[in-house]
Structures are given as C-alpha cells and as structure tokens.
C-alpha cells in the first residue's frame, strides 16, 4: 500500500523526467547508448582450466582453506574412497574408459591447436571480409571527396577561360570589322579611279584632237612660195653651220 502511494507520488516526477526526451523524439534516446550488434568485440575464448577439465575457479575457491594441494587431496581422497568402498566397482568398462581417456588426451594434444587455429582462421577471414567491404567503402568515399574538391577548384578557375573566350570573340569581331572596312575602301577607290581615268582619257583625247587640228591648219596654211623660201634658208643655215663646224675642228 505504501509502495503504491510512493509510486503515485513519484509517477509525475518520472513522467517529467521522461517527457523532455519523449517530446524531442523517441529516436534520440536510442542513440545515446551503444548499438548492440556492432562492433561488439568477440567473447574471450574459454575460461582457464587445469588438466583440461577442472576450472581454475575451483582451485581458487579451495585455496584459502586448503592451500595449493587442497583440490588434489580432495580428488585423490574421493577416488580412493570410491574404490575402496566399492562404490565404483572396477569392471571391464574401467579398462575401456582408461583407453578412451588416453585416446582423447592424445587426440586433443595432437590436433587441438590445429583445430583451434582453423576455427580462428575462419573467424578472421569473416572479419577480414567485412573489414575489406568497410575499407573499400571508406576509400571510395574519400576518393569521391577528393574528386569533388578538385571539381570545385576547377570551377573556381573557369573565369579565366571565360575571359579568354570573350577576348577571342572580341578579336574576331574587330578583325571582321577591319576587313569589311578595307573592302569598302577598296571599292570606293576603284570607283573614284574609274572617274579619274575617264577624265584623263577625255583630256588626252581633247589634247590630241587639238594638236591634230593645229597641225592640219598649219599644214594647210603653208603656201608653196613659203615652203620654197624656208627650204633655201635651211640649206644656207646648214652650209654656214658646216663651215663653222669645220673651223672648230
């Protein structure tokens, strides 16, 4: 009855202490304690035994009262008691049990370590396989992290590429513009040259025509009397020139 009263008193306090964790979420409480399945270390292999069957704790239990030889005295006394009082009768089965004991001891001594090593090897292989999976996963994830960081570094350097590309495009546009400018200049020059050439041609033709006209009118104006006078003058000039030329030489 008192206990019920105590429980009734303590219940609200208990609820209050639980309430915060409940209000936060049930999952929170699970993860405060260690998970039960992994990585649980393996149980230690077997307790210590003396002579293959008797646990060490038995000897320790008897040690305070009977010392080191206590358990052995107990064993010997018990065996002798059983034999002498014929509680255990020696029959053919005793021989069988002695042979069996000898065989068992021989088998354990000879093949025990090998079998234990085999069992340990199986265990180790299992654990190693699990570890390998874990390590592979860890390595794979680390590599992913490294490559992700590299990608981020690459992304930082992209603006250089963009600037270069922009510059290239500007260069192209400039070159194109200049090319077109040159074309325009050449075309315009060609047309102007054409007009200049036409003007020159016209002038030359006018000049030639005028020269021809003047020649024609001069030739027409020359009378036969004038022609004879000019020829005789030319002959007289030539004679005087030849005389002076002979004189100089």
């Amino acid at each position: 009855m008192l206990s019920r009263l105590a429980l009734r008193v303590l219940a609200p306090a208990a609820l209050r202490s639980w309430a915060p964790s409940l209000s936060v979420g049930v999952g929170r409480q699970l993860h405060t304690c260690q998970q039960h399945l992994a990585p649980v270390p393996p149980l230690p292999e077997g307790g210590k035994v003396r002579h293959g069957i008797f646990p060490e704790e038995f000897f320790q239990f008897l040690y305070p009262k009977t010392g080191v030889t206590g358990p052995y005295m107990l064993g010997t006394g018990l065996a002798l008691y059983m034999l002498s009082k014929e509680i255990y009768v020696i029959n053919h089965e005793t021989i069988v049990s002695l042979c069996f004991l000898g065989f068992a001891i021989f088998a354990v001594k000879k093949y025990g370590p090998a079998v234990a090593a085999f069992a340990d090897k199986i265990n180790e292989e299992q654990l190693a396989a699990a570890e390998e999976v874990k390590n592979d996963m860890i390595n794979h994830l680390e590599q992913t992290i490294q490559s992700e960081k590299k990608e981020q570094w690459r992304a930082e350097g992209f603006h250089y590429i963009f600037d270069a590309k922009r510059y290239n495009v500007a260069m192209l546009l400039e070159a194109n513009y200049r090319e077109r400018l040159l074309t325009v200049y050449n075309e315009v020059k060609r047309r102007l040259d054409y007009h200049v050439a036409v003007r020159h041609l016209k002038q030359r033709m006018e000049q030639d025509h005028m020269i021809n006209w003047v020649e024609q009118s001069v030739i027409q104006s020359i009378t036969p009397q004038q022609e004879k006078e000019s020829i005789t003058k030319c002959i007289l000039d030539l004679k005087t020139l030849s005389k002076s030329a002979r004189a100089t030489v």
Partner: protein
Amino acid sequence: MMTNLFNQFEIPQMFGTKMTLITLLLPLMLTPQPTNRLSTNRTYTLTKWMLKEITKHLMLPTSKNGFKWAPLLTSLLLMLLTLNIVGMFPYTFTPTTQLSVNMALALPLWLATVLIGLRTQPTKSMAHLLPEGTPTLLIPTLIVIESISLLIRPIALGVRLTANLTAGHLLLQLISTAALSTIKMIPTLSLLPTVLLILLMVLEFAVAIIQAYVFTLLTCLYLQENT
C-alpha cells in the same frame, strides 16, 4: 561383474518408463545455440563450418526438388554423429544400437522418398526397377529382383546402423573383459588386449562417424533417384 554382455544395450528406465526419447534429445543439448554475433566462439564457428560443408556435399548432386530435404538430412547426420560419438564414452547408452530407433528413422525416410517418386514422376521411378541393357528374356526376373531390393532398403538401412554399432560395442566389451581378466593373472599378457582395445577404439570412432554418414548418404541417394 556383468551378468550378460548384452546388458549394456538395455534401455535406461525411470520408474518403468523407457527413456529412449530423452536420450535422443541429447544432441540437442550438446549443439551450440545460434547467435547473431559476427565473430563467434570456436565451438560455434566449427559447428557452423561443419553444417555448411555437410549441407553443401549432400545437396550438390541433388536436384532442385530435393533441396527442401536439406535441413532434415543435415540435422539427421548431425544427430547420428553426436549419438554415435557420445556412445563411445564409457557408461553411456547409445540409442542407435536399438533396432527400434533405427527402424523408426529409416522406414519413414525411405517410404517418403518412394512415395515422392511415385507421386511426382511415377514413370521415372518405376523405370528404376529395370537396369539399362538387360536382355529381354530376363526382364520379368529382374523386375522382381529389383522390387525385392527396393523393399529391402529400409530394413538394410536400419539394420546396418544397428548391427555396426552393436557389434562395435560388443567387441569393445569382450576385449576389455579379456584385458581385465588377464591383468589380474598375467599382467604382461594383458598388454595385448589393451593394445587391441586402443586400436579398436580408434576403429569404433571411425565406424561411428562413417555409419552416420552412410545412413544419411543413402537416404539422400534414394531421394536423388526419386526427385
């Protein structure tokens, strides 16, 4: 002092009730319990390895229909192995020396394989009664012979195990009695039976393991014939 060499095969009783069933449950107590741990102790690791090997070797030649017999055959082998080896200990009772126990195992298993064969593939299981390449005149005779051989199988299965183990235990008792008698009179002479006893013990262990294996293997073989 033994009154009778066969007294060792008496079934232990408790107030008149035979305790065969309880003795058959011994392997269950000796097999380690499965756990969820990844790294187990040595006993369980070895048990697990042994069970895996047994199942693998039994089921390798078996067809897909026979796979549902895997747990039965593996546990059968494990039980027979444990019973036979524990029976090697002095002052123990081996249930597999009793014809009743072995027939109770052999007959239902054999009958099950035959019925499965007749039910699922009657033509093929009937065809087993006639070996290939027999001359036409001999067919009726051979069918009769093969039918007899088929019907003998459960008896053979049960009696083989019983006889082997009983004979082994008897021999052990006989030679140890000889050793005990000569130890009192001519100790030097008793060395011979003792040495013989040790050798026989080794043989008996081997026989115990082999007989358990043979029993299970033959059952598996009958299963392969019929599935």
